[in-house]
């Protein structure tokens, strides 16, 4: 059992272009609406290769997750885009020693 989603998609466009489409808010908004995100700004950026956003499920109980888009050249001029999405859990202080810490479930 796993609470992680991993998917891979291929695009004919070069990595530099896909990078702009996933990292620049003006483009990102057109395929990944801000309404599905906790905030418009990425929570992590590795310039040119990976960008992460915090998401909030529109359906109750509105689980929050972090999605990372990893970009790599496919060797034929196109782009391989990997989606990795993990649930974010706020660890309750009563049940764990690491009080108030936010952690992600491993795969």
């Amino acid at each position, binding site marked *: 059992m796993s609470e992680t989603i991993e*998917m891979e998609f291929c695009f004919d*466009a070069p990595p530099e*272009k*896909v990078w702009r489409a996933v990292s620049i808010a003006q483009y990102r908004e*057109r*395929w990944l609406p801000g309404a599905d995100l906790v905030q418009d700004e990425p929570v992590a950026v590795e310039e040119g290769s990976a960008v992460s956003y915090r998401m909030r499920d529109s*359906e109750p*109980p509105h689980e929050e997750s972090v999605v990372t888009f990893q970009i790599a050249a496919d060797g034929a001029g196109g782009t391989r885009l990997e989606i990795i999405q993990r649930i974010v*859990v706020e*660890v309750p202080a009563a049940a764990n020693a690491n009080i108030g810490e936010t952690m992600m479930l491993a795969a």
Partner: protein
Amino acid sequence: MDDDSLFRALADPTRRAIFERLATGPSNASGLREGFGISQPAMSQHLGVLVGAGLVRQEREGRFVNYEVDPAGIGRIGIWLGRYQAYWPSRMADLGNVLKEMDQ
């Protein structure tokens, strides 16, 4: 049933291991303690969290309480996974269109 606690319940490695043990078959608390090396109160607390999260259900049998995986809890994880597994392909189709428009 507290939906919010489902993923939190599984974030703790010990609780996750207890849950995975129960996934192999029902057990009572003392049977579960074998191999975990944790105190009876600690095991009770972990089981309480799993029950509270709707992942495990308990059934009294004479002097013992049996614990087993609650299929409904697994179903909620499946619902989350299923929702996003359907979500991303359509987002990727939109991304493909955005990439085409960026050419112009």
